[in-house]
């Protein structure tokens, strides 16, 4: 348990397990471009997941607010909607078409794109404290 506590973390935070992070902060860490939902940058989230398979997201994701993905089709947005997610981040610089952006916009979902690859994007956010402590095993 103790060895997972990074310097700068408080024990309390680890026991509570949740760090709140603003979507705007996530955007800054990933050097991302916001495609819609600019007005929602102050929304706080506490966990994220990354996948290109929407069925996996639907199967295993619990209460994650952020979806990192390289999958570029309207079902990405629908999956996020079904899961009550707040933000979709496209990795590898992928940019969705206008219909996808407006679907996200109409449903109050922030959409952004980062040039980082999946592994790095997830790592950067995890390293910044965006994770829930405890086991994430299925």
């Amino acid at each position, binding site marked *: 348990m103790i060895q997972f506590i990074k310097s700068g973390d408080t024990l309390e935070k680890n026991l509570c397990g949740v760090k709140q992070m603003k979507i705007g902060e996530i955007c800054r860490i990933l050097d991302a471009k916001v495609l819609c939902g600019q007005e929602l940058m102050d929304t706080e989230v506490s966990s994220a997941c990354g996948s290109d398979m*929407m069925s996996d997201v639907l199967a295993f994701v619990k209460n994650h607010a952020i979806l990192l993905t390289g999958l570029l089709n309207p079902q990405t947005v629908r999956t996020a*909607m*079904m*899961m*009550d997610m707040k933000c979709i981040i496209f990795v590898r610089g992928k940019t969705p078409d206008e219909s996808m952006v407006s679907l996200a916009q109409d449903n109050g979902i922030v959409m952004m794109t980062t040039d980082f690859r999946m592994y790095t994007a997830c790592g950067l956010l995890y390293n910044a404290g965006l994770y829930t402590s405890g086991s994430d095993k299925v």
Partner: protein
Amino acid sequence: MAINMRYVVDGSDFTTAGEASTAVKMKLKKLGIAPDIVRRVAIAMYEAEINMVIHAGGGVAEVELESDKIIIKLIDHGKGIADVDLAMREGYSTAPDAVRNLGFGAGMGLPNIKKYSDEMHIDTEVGKGTTVTIIINLQ
């Protein structure tokens, strides 16, 4: 007392798949159904709706909201399922690569539906079609 909803699911357009589930989710939310139940309904119905589009050429979705449960029926006249036990297995999929590239076809749909529902029934006949019934209790 019961509220009924009915949606035609277009089997020719993958991009619109999920519209029926989205509409049901919004309606249930508006009716004040608990968020975790709404989410379970949404996910289970969405997987079944996607299946109807990618495996069966579309169909009809019927939702009935009763005082104690929600019953969702997805009715298609597609090719049917030859071996339901096999189809229910995690990872089993006959979806073509084109579907996999769209983020589905991992063989998790039917297991997901089972996971999120209180009851699930599959009535199917090869060459005739499939009806998937999903029941989720309100408490």
